[in-house]
């Protein structure tokens, strides 16, 4: 379980996060939603340690991650897998080398075992046979799937996903959502997803946190979201005519 306690984060005079507390449960898809500039990605980066919070704590299974130095964080980081918004695959490496890279650094597996793991991860994301391709030869959706394969190669306990559906067509977006959902179920990972895609929210949102202007305004599940009377959340979720019409039918 990951707990975030009273996180503040400022960049100069710009206060982006204003005291956010939340907990993210294992085996669940925990979604952080909100409009652009609401602080979703900043919160995610504070949780994984890419940004240091101005104040507050992040606990991984009751271990205070925020107070740890680089070396102290390494054992926790080995249990983290992350899919970035633009996939962040290493351009100079093939798909297979991208997946094997963390295994090379942190495991004592033999070459054959590492190849087996890479093939298993690629099969998991339906990309078997793409081992020797370079990222520049892949489509946006394929890059995301390779990013997921790399994220799960170390069999992570915590999976972080930043805007998994940005730039993807609706069909591929649903495929990616389903893939993340399957991985969360199968490996019982604590999955934290930053998104503003309402299809993801309604489809896989086991636990949802809504941020606006650096504050947490609402917390609940995808079943509860349609019936909330929170004005800020309603303004965000039901901004489009389509979503308003869908709510009326519910």
């Amino acid at each position, binding site marked *: 379980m990951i707990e975030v306690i009273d996180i503040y984060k400022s960049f100069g005079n710009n206060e982006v996060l204003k005291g956010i507390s939340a907990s993210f449960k294992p085996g669940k898809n925990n979604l952080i939603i909100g409009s652009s500039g609401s602080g979703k990605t900043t919160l995610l980066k504070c949780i994984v340690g890419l940004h240091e919070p101005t104040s507050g704590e992040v606990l991984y299974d009751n271990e205070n991650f925020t107070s740890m130095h680089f070396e102290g964080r390494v054992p926790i*980081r080995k249990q983290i897998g*992350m899919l970035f918004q633009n996939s962040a695959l290493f351009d100079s490496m093939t798909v297979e080398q991208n997946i094997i890279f963390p295994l*090379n650094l942190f495991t004592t597996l033999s070459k054959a075992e590492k190849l087996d793991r890479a093939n298993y991860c690629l099969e998991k994301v339906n990309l078997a046979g793409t081992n020797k391709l370079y990222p520049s030869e892949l489509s946006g959706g394929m890059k995301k799937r390779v990013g997921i394969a790399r994220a799960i190669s170390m069999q992570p306990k915590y999976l972080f996903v930043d805007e998994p559906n940005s730039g993807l067509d609706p069909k591929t977006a649903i495929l990616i959502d389903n893939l993340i959902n399957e991985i969360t179920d199968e490996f019982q990972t604590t999955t934290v997803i930053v998104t503003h895609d309402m299809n993801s929210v309604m489809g896989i949102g086991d636990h949802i946190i809504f941020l606006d202007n650096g504050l947490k305004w609402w917390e609940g599940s995808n079943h509860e979201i349609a019936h909330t009377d929170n004005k800020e959340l309603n303004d965000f979720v039901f901004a489009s005519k389509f979503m308003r019409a869908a709510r009326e039918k519910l």
Partner: protein
Amino acid sequence: MFYSLGRYILLLRLSFRKPEKFSVYWDEVMREMVSVGIGSLGIVAIISVFIGAVATIQTAFQLVSDLIPKTVVGKITRDSTILEFSPTISALVLAGRVGSSIASQIGTMRVTEQIDALEIMGVNAPGYLISPKIIAGVTMVPLLIIISVGLGLCGGYIACAASRDVSTADYIAGLTGDFNQIIMVVCCVKAIVFGFIITSICAYQGFYTSGGSLEVGQSATRGVVFSCVMILFADLVISKMLL
């Protein structure tokens, strides 16, 4: 300025932390050595031959007195090539070729979140990305400069043979006579320092890139400009200290 200097020193300290796995870092060092060394050999060879030839022709042009033996042309060409032309001009060219490549490569990795991905995995990103480049720089730049010295002197020989301002026999006599070994020591010290300056400054500029492709280009430009200025400054300091 002090902020940047402090950040540069801290980045270097991070770069030389104990690696997660030596074998992976060793592969990176080898790859960078090929990129810096073999990749730059062509341009260094071309400019070295021309520098040596031009230095010989211009020295011969200025020493027209019958009181000065023609062998002096070879001696001056040798000393100026070893002390100044080969190390400094080669380093300035390498700052453009190798430095801009390092800054833009690391800068692109920064803006496309590849460095964030390394850090999330628990990899010491400065160590993995920067230390192999610095090691390649301080080993391959001296080798390139030694090759440059040899080719520069060959260039001078070709100029003598072609122009006949100085006979090749006088040129060879000038090259081989009255050699003070300290100039080779100064040349090697300069080469090592220049290799460090090019790789570390450009890596620093790339590592702290923020924004997009425009900023990557600006980082590469800054890296080359700062490297060139620091090369000339270090050239002055080393010459003053060792000669």
